[in-house]
């Protein structure tokens, strides 16, 4: 009895010490044993039921919650839910919530099929020492701009609503405002279109000078090299796959993606790869799994970061896709709006969120570290540029 009372008091103190962390679902939600839909389903929780947030995953898209029988009493439900289905007060910030670093983003053992390898990959990558070296080479030897990023890919990446809204000043990040520094730091550079991201582009055509924008690229220059020459970015967010599925097998896709990675590294650019979302009901589903597995393998071999969008989008309605089964569903606004759970139903919002979170990771663990190192003291870094420097003419 004494033990039970002590446990009850302890949980009450941990769970209900801060009312900022008390929330309610705005619709019925499923409670899982861990931060992903592959984990065991524990319960369904009705709209309006008070929940206390204990911790979050590395982004904030999933939160560990507890439900008490009454406020301050015994815990009757304890598990993880998608945060986009919760109501948040104005003073709620994911930056204040402890991050769980022990539970993986999926229970990979729940699926031992070809998908197993994809479930093993974290949604947000950790940044390797090899990428720190790439950044350093780009910054010190090639004079790349730390605060400039670019994007490489097909129509989903060329989309004006992918990353480009980071350059706006009317974004609503709350409760994800812990990403504000990353948005401010890289935002201006996203306002300039990438010549290496075009409608219909593939891992082949990104190396085809025919596809280079002749108004800014040199003769014989590939779109990728042209983009890196013009902007001298420190980071490239790269996603191919959906177009390539129809044009090549996974062996050739692997070859081409490795070329992109190698080319990026030679330019001192950290290539951030991404798996892509795909509908299992579509005819090329098995091929898409092979492609995504190739991406995961390349990232591991080359020690480059990879965003596991495929995994994160599995928990979204229709895998975060539009009705065309290709593009990611938009969230309905021209600016970033993360205060109404858009990342829980819009693949495009989720992709922006994951990309910005990854940029935040690179900024904190690579760029700021390098700037704070003794070796960088002699070469001060511009930290708050108004606009990125672009060499617009060949």
């Amino acid at each position, binding site marked *: 009895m004494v033990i039970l009372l002590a446990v009850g008091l302890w949980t009450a103190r941990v769970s209900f010490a801060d009312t900022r962390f008390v929330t309610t679902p705005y619709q019925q939600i499923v409670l899982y044993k861990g931060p992903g839909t592959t984990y065991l389903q524990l319960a369904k929780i009705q709209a309006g039921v008070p929940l206390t947030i204990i911790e979050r995953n590395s982004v904030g898209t999933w939160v560990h919650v507890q439900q008490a029988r009454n406020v301050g009493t015994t815990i009757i439900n304890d598990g993880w839910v998608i945060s986009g289905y919760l109501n948040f007060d104005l003073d709620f910030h994911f930056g204040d919530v402890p991050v769980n670093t022990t539970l993986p983003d999926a229970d990979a053992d729940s699926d031992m099929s070809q998908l197993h390898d994809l479930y093993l990959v974290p949604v947000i990558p950790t940044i390797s020492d090899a990428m720190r070296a790439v950044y350093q080479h780009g910054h010190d030897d090639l004079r790349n701009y730390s605060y400039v990023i670019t994007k490489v890919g097909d*129509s989903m990446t060329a989309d004006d609503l992918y990353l480009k809204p980071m350059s706006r000043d009317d974004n609503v990040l709350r409760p994800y405002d812990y990403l504000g520094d990353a948005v401010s730091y890289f935002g201006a550079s996203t306002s300039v279109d990438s010549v290496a991201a075009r*409608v*219909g582009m593939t891992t*082949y055509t990104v190396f085809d000078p025919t596809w280079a924008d002749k108004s800014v690229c040199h003769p*014989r220059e590939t779109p990728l090299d042209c983009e890196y020459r013009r902007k001298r970015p420190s980071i490239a967010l790269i996603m191919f796959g959906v177009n390539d599925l129809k044009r090549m097998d996974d062996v050739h896709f692997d070859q081409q993606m490795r070329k992109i990675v190698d080319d990026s590294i030679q330019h001192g650019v950290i290539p951030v790869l991404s798996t892509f979302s795909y509908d299992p009901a579509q005819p090329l589903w098995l091929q898409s799994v092979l492609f995504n597995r190739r991406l995961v393998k390349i990232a591991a071999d080359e020690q480059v970061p990879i965003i596991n969008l495929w995994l994160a989008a599995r928990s979204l309605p229709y895998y975060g896709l539009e009705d065309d089964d290709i593009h990611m569903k938009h969230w309905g606004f021209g600016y970033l709006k993360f205060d109404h759970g858009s990342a829980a139903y819009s693949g495009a919002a989720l992709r922006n969120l994951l990309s910005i979170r990854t940029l935040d990771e690179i900024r904190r663990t690579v760029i700021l570290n390098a700037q704070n190192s003794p070796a960088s003291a002699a070469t001060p870094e511009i930290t708050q540029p108004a606009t990125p420097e672009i060499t617009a003419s060949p």
Partner: protein
Amino acid sequence: MLLLGIVLLVSCTSSGGGDPAKVVTQYLQAKVSADQKTMQGLLCSSMEANLEQEASSFAGLDAKLQDVTCTRQGDSNIVACTGKIVATYGTEQTDFPLVSYKVVQEDGAWKWCGEADAGTEAP
């Protein structure tokens, strides 16, 4: 083919081993048609490794040449083209303007050898 005949205006200047301007036009037509077999016969040896990339450039897209005129620059190995490739992806149309291309003679035949650098090269 009929459409091709209407939209193509190929300016011909003859040379040993065929007409380089015609070779370039044929190559561009093969490229928009993803006709790898034809491209293989028209591609210079130094670009053989790019054949698959070249052939897949517009594969799966509805692409065509529009208002194309190709002319050899004097006796040089440069063929300058005007006009464009028009590619449609879904409902979106993208234009790819044509530029100057390098040609080389191999075994007595002219071959397409990629985009020309700025300036005219000696034959």
